[in-house]
Structures are given as structure tokens and as C-alpha cells.
């Protein structure tokens, strides 16, 4: 069933169950919000999205109010704007306001709201909550003094991730979002909470101080881990990937896992191979060799068995040896293993090389492993 609704004089027809906020956004009418997130259930905590509805005596939150047929909504009146300003001042009266050193400066919804409403003086200065930062986990930085208790992290953790690692605790001014018994965060570290946090309260530890949003170039690409193929955005500063995010309008709705969001540091790893190498000492024929395996195969010990060579030398050497072996043992004595980590184009070219240039069908990849 479609409902007719008039917002600021503009008419829209929306399906039953549409909220006033959603209807306004369909009409390109901006209503300020802090706690609302389109992928999460409405919360109604920040009170910025209040509007006037004809026939209802008090202002109501547009994010929680479903449209009724014939509803008439006004999104901005002097009284509404005045209330919004009070709310913002109240939030800012309990906020460190240290934007100059905040990771999220320039990319912070609260900062943006303060800018729009021109909050500089604060009528409601008073006590601020102060907390000790005591998280030991290596992924997520929680600066609860910057937390505005919008509840997005709590909701995303429960509704989307199904974990429920955090919730509201305590009451009144001392209300706080924390893990049970204020223990360290111990969860799946998907970082969904970081992605929905409208302020600098939650951020990734590994990108702390590496660059704010205005300094990065964003490159949209596809995650290189599991087969889900989440759309990710690499944040590049200089020649370094300093952060990974995912946009809300991607098919994966902006959700990632711990690997996708926090597992990018291998790109800039000092262990990366930088030059072609040719073996100079014979292979150790003893068995087993595993005792010397470093974590993840850094290969520090075996590096000395190789020398760095130019590309031409390496490529000539390879083509020479392969040609020799093919001549001696036939093409079928040569096999190629390709990789699920490589692109379609590379895999296509690889099998074509084995089939067309070498002349064998011995080509496979790790689909079975």
C-alpha cells in the first residue's frame, strides 16, 4: 500500500513502513542525523532528526516515525532548529573537542554538524566524562570520551555481525558503551563498529596518525582474501596503503571482515620480493627442512642461496632451461601451477603460456586445496 506524504510542501508516495526520514531523503530533503544509519534499525537517540508533524503536539524523531497516509511534515522551523542546536551544544559539552589531533577531523559527522549549526560558544559547559584507554587488542582503538552514544556500534555488532560484543552500560551521564564487565574487547574484530562510528571514538589502531581522510587517494577495488569478493576501498597516501574501508553502497553494504579491513599491511611489508633471484648453491637434499621455517616463511636463511639478477638474465635463464627440458623430455615434462590470488587476465595468460608456448596441458591451480 502506498502512503501519500507531504514534506516541506513536497509530495511523495511511499510504501507502507517507510519512515519520515527515508521519505524525506527520497525527496532530497536533508534532515540532520547522528545516530541514524540506513543499514541499521532506527534508534532515535540523538534527537537531531526531529520534525514537526501536523496533529502531533510535540516534535518527533523522523528516523523512528513511520509515514501515515496524508501526513504533513515540516522539517525545519525556528523551534526545531533551536532544539537541534541545543542538542548539539549538549553533545559538544561532553566531547573533548580536540579536532586538531583527531583521526577523524574532516571526516566526522559531529564536526560537520557543529559546522553547519555554527556551534562555537557553548551555553552548557560542564563536567566531561574521562576514561582511561586500556584496550589491549591490536585492531580497534576505543576513545570513549569521543563517544556520543549513538548506539550504531552496538547495533551493527548485534544486528549485522550477530556478535553482541558491546552494549550500553551504566546509567545517566555515566552511560557508556563497553564490553561486558568493561573487559578488553574480545570479538571477531570485523571493524564494522569502526565503519559506522560517526566520530573519532572508534578507529583502527594500525592507521593511527598515518593520514587523515583529506590526504588520501581512494581506490576502489576487490578484496584479495576469500571468495566472497567484497568491494573495498584502498586509502593511499604516498605509495602506501594506509587504510581499507568499504563503501555503504557496495553490494556487500560496506561490511568487511577482520582480514579485509585490517589485513592489508602485507602490501607494504619489507619482506616483499624486489629483485629476480637465481639459485647459486645446490638445493639441500636433507629432509625434513621445516625446522628452519620462520613464521610465514620469511626465508631469511635461504636468501643467501640466491643472488639478485637483472630481469633479462632471469627471463633468459628461465626460457633457456625450459627450452632445454622440453627438447630433452618433451612438453609434458613441464607443469605450471597458477594462482587463485592472480587476476582472470593473468590466469588466462598463464594457461595460454603453458598450452601455447610450452605445449602441455599440465596446468592447474589450488581450487582443490
Amino acid at each position, binding site marked *: 500500500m502506498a502512503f501519500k506524504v507531504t514534506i516541506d510542501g513536497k509530495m511523495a508516495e511511499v510504501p507502507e513502513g517507510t519512515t519520515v526520514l527515508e521519505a524525506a531523503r527520497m525527496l532530497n530533503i536533508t534532515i540532520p542525523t547522528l545516530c541514524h544509519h540506513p543499514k541499521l534499525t532506527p534508534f532515535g537517540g540523538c534527537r537531531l532528526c526531529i520534525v514537526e508533524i501536523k496533529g502531533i503536539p510535540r516534535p518527533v524523531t523522523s528516523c523512528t516515525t513511520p509515514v501515515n497516509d496524508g501526513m504533513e511534515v515540516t522539517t525545519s522551523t525556528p523551534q526545531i532548529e533551536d532544539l537541534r542546536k541545543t542538542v548539539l551544544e549538549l553533545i559538544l559539552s561532553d566531547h573533548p573537542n580536540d579536532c586538531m589531533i583527531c583521526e577523524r577531523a574532516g571526516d566526522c559527522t559531529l564536526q560537520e554538524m557543529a559546522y553547519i549549526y555554527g556551534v562555537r560558544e557553548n551555553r552548557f559547559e560542564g563536567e566531561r566524562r574521562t576514561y582511561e584507554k586500556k584496550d589491549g587488542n591490536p585492531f580497534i582503538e576505543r576513545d570513549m570520551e569521543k563517544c556520543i552514544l549513538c548506539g550504531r556500534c552496538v547495533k551493527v555488532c548485534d544486528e549485522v555481525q550477530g556478535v553482541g560484543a558491546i552494549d550500553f552500560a551504566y546509567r545517566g551521564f555515566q552511560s557508556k558503551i563497553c564490553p561486558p564487565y568493561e573487559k578488553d574487547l574480545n570479538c571477531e574484530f570485523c571493524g564494522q563498529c569502526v565503519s559506522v562510528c560517526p566520530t573519532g571514538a572508534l578507529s583502527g589502531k594500525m592507521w593511527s596518525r598515518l593520514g587523515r581522510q583529506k590526504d588520501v587517494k581512494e581506490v576502489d577495488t576487490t578484496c584479495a582474501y576469500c571468495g566472497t569478493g567484497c568491494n573495498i576501498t584502498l586509502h593511499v597516501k604516498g605509495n602506501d596503503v594506509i587504510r581499507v574501508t568499504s563503501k555503504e553502497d557496495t553490494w556487500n553494504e560496506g561490511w568487511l571482515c577482520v582480514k579485509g579491513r585490517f589485513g592489508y599491511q*602485507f602490501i607494504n611489508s619489507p619482506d616483499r*620480493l624486489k629483485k629476480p633471484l637465481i639459485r647459486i648453491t645446490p638445493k639441500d637434499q636433507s629432509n625434513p627442512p621445516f625446522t628452519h621455517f620462520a613464521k610465514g616463511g*620469511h626465508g631469511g636463511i635461504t636468501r643467501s642461496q640466491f643472488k639478485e639478477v637483472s630481469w633479462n638474465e632471469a627471463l633468459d635463464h628461465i626460457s633457456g632451461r625450459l627450452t632445454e627440458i622440453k627438447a630433452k623430455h618433451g612438453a609434458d615434462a613441464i607443469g605450471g601451477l597458477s594462482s587463485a590470488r592472480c587476476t582472470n587476465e593473468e590466469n588466462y595468460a598463464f594457461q*595460454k603460456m603453458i598450452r601455447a608456448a610450452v605445449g602441455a596441458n599440465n596446468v592447474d591451480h589450488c581450487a582443490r586445496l
Partner: protein
Amino acid sequence: MASLAAIFGSGAMTNSIKEIEGMEMIFIIGSNTKESHPVIANRMIKAYRKGAKIIVADPRRVPMVRFAEVFLNLRPGADIALINGLAHVILKEGLDNKEFIADKTEGFEEWKKSVETYTPEYVEKITGVPAVDIIKAARLYGSSRKAGLFYTMGITQHTCGTENVNAVANLVMLTGNIGRESTGVNPLRGQNNVQGASDAACLPNVYPGYQKVDLPEIREKFEKAWGVSLSPRPGLTATEMIPAALEGKIKAMYIMGENPVITDPNTHHTVDALKKLDFLVVQDIFMTETAELADVVLPSTCFAEKNGTFSNTERKVQRVRKAVEPPGDARSDLSIIMEISKRLGYPMNYKSPEDVLVEFGQVWPNLAGITYQRLDKDGIQWPCPDKDHPGTEYLYKEGFPKGKVRFTPAAYTPPAEVASEEYPFVLTTGRNLYQYHSGSMTRRVKAIEAHAGEPYVEISPGDGERLHIKDGEAVKVTSRRGSIKIKARITPKVSMGTVFIPMHYSEAAANVITNDALDAQVKIPEFKVCAVKIEKK
């Protein structure tokens, strides 16, 4: 995946991930979705929040069990018995989709006989799953006509992997839960571009687009397209190349971006084989355990340093974009391949990765409509035969390529190795949430290493108590093939008699002990079951 292709026509997910939220019934078997495919699990949770019922069948109490209506905690390797048991109950209660069976399938009557003996009581004996739960699950899946079935390596990495897939497919056909929106069978791919590597024919028996090398007309088509004569003989699979190397039949290998020393079963065997090669080229981004054994090591680029496309588990071709310059002299894999090919006398003249995709689309119509320009905002799911085709969200909307699909009886056979007096535990392997595959990427992420940098073996509290093994204590896990030292993690995630080791850690490489016995048809090793003993250090 090949087994599934043999049955329905394609080995890919029949649904798209988005469709999961519309499913009313989700059956997860042999997939630790929450840890191996976390974002797909998010969709399942979304469906759950909308009222979908979830069944989880797994030897381990995996995290998705939290959302399960029924948890079928089966013994490792008993999948066929369980699935046949479900089919038995569905038939007995008349929940089968008679219309679908009559219109779209063949071999039903014969197959039906094959599940007659799988009564819930009999299946309980084999699987350890209570008969009441089998009946409950059968009713849930059987009475739904909007059900999605999901599996991964927990189904395929067995000596009976092909039969496992057959059993799964039979269940799907029995209920007709395929070929509609939010309804289908969905193998989840473990790696970012397994789908693409398979599509591109890094497979020994087919050319790009699963076109058989041993069919002359196909070979002629490719000889014409590539301007060269091609070998008519199907090649060896990865798991066959290793023994062939040991036997001296394979003399040289070119390995691009793979680390078989860690990811293949029976590591000793793999190392011996690679050392025996006359010549080994490894092209990778790190000095992997495999690269250490190479004669030439070539530095290549990672996903952030190149342009191209990946195809995900739902057949969606998506863009990979270059964000940073590669380190040192590292070059893109494509440019290296072109250089080698040229030197071998077969120059490839691609000006950009896009040229390759264009050629790919010319030899395989399913990609013909996909261009980089169309991929700019969103990916496209193949089949996409022309430029105006929107892509295909779910397969078999218009029926199966073969017309009718066939029920193939699958009989329960015990795993190649079962627990014995000497090796009383069943070891199963897999992934954890934090690390990825051989760990060459994730283990270089400091935060991940700090949080999950240590190998462990999961032991049930009951077994821990019995063997006086405490949480965190070092133990020795030994199979007929080797042994590793590793820390014990006492957890109710595993049941008594079963232990689990994640595959990622080279310092306690699970594949030192796993069994390299292969599935006879698709040559997948039995990573998921082997017999081990556990001793206190």
C-alpha cells in the same frame, strides 16, 4: 566444483550472495561460514533476522551454530550418511517435490532405493547425530521451497568428495530447491579468484570456459584462436604433478603465486618432489616456503599494484585497480608471462589487461558482454553473453543445460583413515577467522599476528581431561605421515574424539600430518579426515 558441474552444468554458486537474505531456509554443511566467509555469514544473519531458519551440519561447533534451529554435529567424514538420512525422511514424510522430480530429473526411482536403508536410527549410528535432530532438519529443509544449501571444503576435501557432492545434489533435486531466486545450491569459494582461475582454465582438462581439451572440435577452435597447435592430451592436476615429479615424469615446474609446500597434504612428500625437479620457477610476492626450493624466484605484484578483474564465488566479475607502485623491480604477473612466452617463441601482444579479458570473452561467450567500462561501478555475474545483458543473478532460471538432471546414488564409505588404537583421534583441518591460507599475506600483518599468531590444536574438554592436557600446554600430534609440536586449545568447539588444526601455520604445518589420499575423480585430497595420536610433550 567439477562434480557439481557434472550434475547441473556449472560448478559455481547458483544464487548470488544478495539473494541469501530472501531465503527462508538456509542449510549449511561443511562450511565454517562465519570464519571463512564472514561477509556471506552477515547475509545469512540478515536472513535470520527476517525469520529464516538455519540448519548447520558440522563436526565442529562452528560460530554459525548460534543461529541454528538445528545443529547436526556429525562425525568427520559421515556427510553422505547424514544427507541420505535427510533424504530418507523427506521421502518417508512425502515432502519431496514430485513435480520437479517428474519434470526435471531422471534416475529418481533407482536412487530412491539407494537411500532406503538410511533410516534416522541407522544414520544416528554412523554420524552420531540424534535421530530426532535428523528428522527435525529433514522436515525443515524438506518442507521449504525457498531453501539455499551452502557448502565448502568440508564437503569436497574427502576421498569421497565427489560422492558427497552427489549426495548434496540429490537432496537439492529431491526438494526442487534450485533454479529460482533465493533458492539453490551454493559452494562457497575459499579464495578470491578460484572461480576466475577455473573459468580461465588453469585446469588440466579444459580450455577457458570449461571447454574440454580432448574434444577435437574444441581444440581446433582454440588452435585457430591462438594460432598454434595444441596438445590433445589432458594434463595432470596439481595433486598429480607432485607424485609425477617424485617419479621423474615432471622435470620442471613454473609456480605462479602458489605455496604448495604449505597448502598441499603430506608436506614431506611435497618437498621431496619439488627438490627432485630439474628446474623450478616460483613467481610470488614473498619468499614462500615453496620459493625457497626454487631455482629462479621472480618478484611479482600484489592485488593493490595491478589492474585486472577477479571473479568471486557468485560468478561476479569485478574490477581490481592499481593503487600503489610495486616495490623495487617487481613486475606484474602478466608482463612476466608475456616476456617468458615471447622468449619461448610465442609472443602475446596484449597492450593492457583489458585486451586479455576481451580475448577471453571471444573464446567463452559467458564473458562476451563484460567490459572494463561496464565494470566501472559494479561487477557483472556471468553468464553475460552480450553488451546489453545485465548478467545472471541465479542459474537455471530457464532450466538445465542438459534438459534433465540425474540422481546419482551415493553410498556412505568410511574415510580413507579411521581412528585406530594407535591413532585414536580424528583430525580435521580448516581455517580460522584471522589467518588466510598459507599465511604469506596475513602473517605479515602485525595486528593479526599479535592476536592470532600462534598455531594450536583444538581438543575437547573431555579429551583434555582424560589425557591431562591443559589449555595452552604443548602437545605432539602425530599421524602415519609425520608429527608436529603445537599448543593445545581446550574448547567445546570440537567433540570428544575429534581434534582440529588450522592450516595456516608453517611452524606447525597441519599438512605435515594430513593424508594425501585423493578423491578418485576430482583429485581433491582428504584434508578433512585423518587419524592422529596426541601425546603430552
